[in-house]
């Protein structure tokens, strides 16, 4: 090339370029903990915090998957009923196999859960990408389908796990490792893998590019269909992992399992800093978002200001406020 210029005065890119969206959720988390402590000093006790974070694990794990879907410009409303459906199938499979396989029915059931989750996610993805149906409508449809299936399988009642398996399976939710409840370890592991995929692998780049501007991605030779379908499939796997953790908590699947989880999941992603219209995903922000939601619910129980029956209402208010903040901070 003929034209050159001295590029001495250009500042190098900082490795860490931290903005409000990155730290916001964690600041909110800390503020919330302080408020909790002021209301009720027991709030910050290890037992209470451990319980709260453990309870937030399901939402956190599913929301990590939702971070992929939302980052690439999609949306999945079916996660709650998908979780119920997978829980139901997993328990039915384990119960059927328990007499022959004994304890081996548990890991086999987990495998079934993952396979069913991947398949459900793949279906959602293909309907959205190949079928070219708005994600909102497509997953609204599958949400109804999964919910109907669990209601049908349980005959409107509940599907309890076989007594012989109950004690062996219990530790997956109630157990600890090095003093830390297993669900917390699992959700941290899921988030770690997710952030690795999103920030260190090529797929993460593609995901963010597709979400930020579909046309630019297409013109850059990135397959929109493949990228989005993979995101929905990852979401399915995350729902399956959450379902596996959920089984021992109640020991049964019912038609009300996972009701309104989609609200909590999307709220967690949005308050975690990922824009609902797509773009860069914030995995750890999402995890913080899930914990924030559970902390608020816990605060409502511990304090007597607001009835705990209003928890979903408060979460609805939070997502609207979070969206307003995203709108006006742009």
């Amino acid at each position, binding site marked *: *090339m*003929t034209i050159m*210029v001295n590029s001495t005065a*250009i*500042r*190098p*890119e900082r490795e860490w370029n931290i903005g409000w969206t990155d730290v916001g959720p964690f600041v909110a988390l800390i503020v919330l903990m302080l408020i909790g402590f002021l209301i009720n000093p027991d709030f910050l006790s290890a037992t209470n915090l451990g319980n709260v974070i453990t309870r937030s694990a399901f939402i956190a794990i599913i929301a990590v998957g939702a971070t992929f879907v939302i980052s690439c410009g999609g949306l999945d409303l079916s996660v709650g009923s998908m979780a119920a459906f997978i829980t139901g199938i997993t328990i039915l499979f384990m119960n059927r196999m328990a007499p022959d396989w004994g304890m081996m029915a548990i890991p086999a059931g987990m495998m079934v859960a993952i396979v069913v989750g991947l398949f459900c996610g793949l279906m959602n993805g293909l309907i959205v990408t190949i079928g070219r149906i708005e994600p909102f409508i497509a997953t609204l449809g599958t949400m109804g389908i999964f919910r109907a299936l669990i209601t049908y399988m349980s005959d409107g009642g509940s599907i309890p796990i076989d007594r012989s398996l109950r004690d062996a399976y219990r530790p997956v939710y109630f157990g600890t490792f090095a003093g830390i409840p297993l669900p917390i370890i699992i959700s941290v592991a899921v988030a770690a893998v997710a952030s690795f995929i999103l920030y260190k692998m090529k797929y*993460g780049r593609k995901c963010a590019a597709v979400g*930020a501007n579909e046309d630019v991605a297409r013109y*850059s030779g990135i397959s929109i269909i493949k990228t989005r379908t993979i995101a929905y499939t990852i979401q399915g796997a995350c729902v399956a992992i959450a379902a596996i953790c959920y089984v021992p908590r109640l020991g049964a699947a019912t038609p009300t399992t996972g009701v309104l989880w989609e609200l909590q999941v999307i709220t967690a992603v949005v308050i975690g800093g990922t824009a609902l219209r797509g773009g860069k995903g914030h995995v750890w922000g999402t995890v913080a978002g899930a914990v924030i939601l559970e902390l608020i619910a816990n605060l409502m129980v511990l304090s007597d200001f607001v009835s705990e029956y209003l928890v979903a209402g408060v979460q609805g208010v939070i997502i609207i406020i979070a969206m307003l903040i995203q709108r006006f901070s742009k």
Partner: protein
Amino acid sequence: MSSVLSIEREGERVVAQKADPLRHSLLRAEGVSKQYGPVTVLSDVTLDILPGEIHAIIGENGAGKSTFMRLLSGYIEPTAGTLALNGEHVRFAKPEQAQDAGIALVHQEILLAEALTVAENLFLGRELMRNGVVDDRTMRRLATEKLAELGCLVSPNALVRNIALADRQLVQIARALLDDYRIVIFDEPTAVLTGEEVERLLAIILQLKEQGAAVLYISHRLDEVQRLADKVTVLRDGKKIGTYPGRTLSQMDMARLMVGRDLAALYPEKRTKAAGEAMLTVRDLSVPGFAKNISFQAHKSEILGFAGMIGAGRTELFEGIMGLRPATGTVELEGKPINIRSPRAVLDAGIGYLTEDRKGKGLLLHERLAPNLTLSALTRFHPGIFLRRSREQDALRTAVEQYDIRLKSFGVKAGQLSGGNQQKLLLAKVLLTTPSVVVIDEPTRGIDIANKAQIYAFIQSLVAEGKACIVISSEMQELIGICDRILVMREGRLRGEVSGDAMTEHNVALLAISDAAADGNVGGRK
């Protein structure tokens, strides 16, 4: 005429003009400045706009032209200085106030609601009412009249989505002229128009002037400025360099005043070397609705131009070749057939395409530069499944140097770069896929003159490396200036080829519009 005073500038005599106190200025900007934080984008500009006069404002990108327009039309307020209308001090806090004062702005971008009809768009936000309901019939009648005045014959019932770009522009102008106006500001009105459409618009502007309106005209196209302007004001780096009587300045004078130094010739000298063997062979390519049975070859070390009106199907043809639109036909690169169903396969085979829409389709504006740079070469750049960030930073540093991308920090986002620098980044991005054929759609749209010359030099150096380069452009001069051979498309078909001495604007224009001109139906309509 008013009194003139001459100044000596770089050996060339340029005439500057003093304001004439006898003729009343309609709108006067006195010492206006605009600052954003520590950045001064406009500094102490004084300008008089007289009725019945076309006043052109020229300057490089970032010279402050748009800021000045926005000040005059009430979109922003000056941080210092005053505006006076008919000698009376005025302040525009909102665009509506400027509108009420008779200042109409025709925006550079087309801001129309695509899902509404032409008439609905014309009256959007100021619908005529009758007995408490919207009076569609009157609005349609007025719309037809107003558009006819502008020589636009689209039906007022047509959806804006379905009319040609040129007609949309006219609808937008009609919208600005619907109210009483004394001053009309055109911001790059011809950026999306070609040939005949430009002529029609220039005639409209002259007509406005005859009717006694003051016209403020901003354009990159210096030939238009030279033909139209009674006065030319040059801005550079936010400062007014001077106001000159239009016809005394040559285009070269204008360019020199804008840049502030002598420009080498805009177009690089043509190489005499003959083009090599065929690189890209396209046979019977059709893109349904846009291009039909197109066959051509591009050779090694050749710059091949594609001329035509907007809507002739040039962009769509190449989007078809790139796998971005459904298309039929065969494409071969150095004898090997390419699967044009998959954009990835075409990129990997070695055809690179720079879109004309760099903000909408070329770059992720909210993303930093390095991810943008490597986006189409992810696999080549990051073998395996992991990202190699240090490699990416090295590539960015190399690209910034090689393509002379001007930036303050490597951490800026693509949207923060100027148009010219964005185009250079896009060029670097496409070239990172190491294509052997590079297709550049509108290489210099919205780019200032200094960057233009650089882009041409880059194109030249690409073919010097043995690549084939295809340039799609609506600026005929540009094609004639850099291409070895020009193919002309009209209404989705190839209409002819010009090369050598036959490459004149006249010949290209003839091929681009001939039938259409005979029908009185100008290209761009489907």
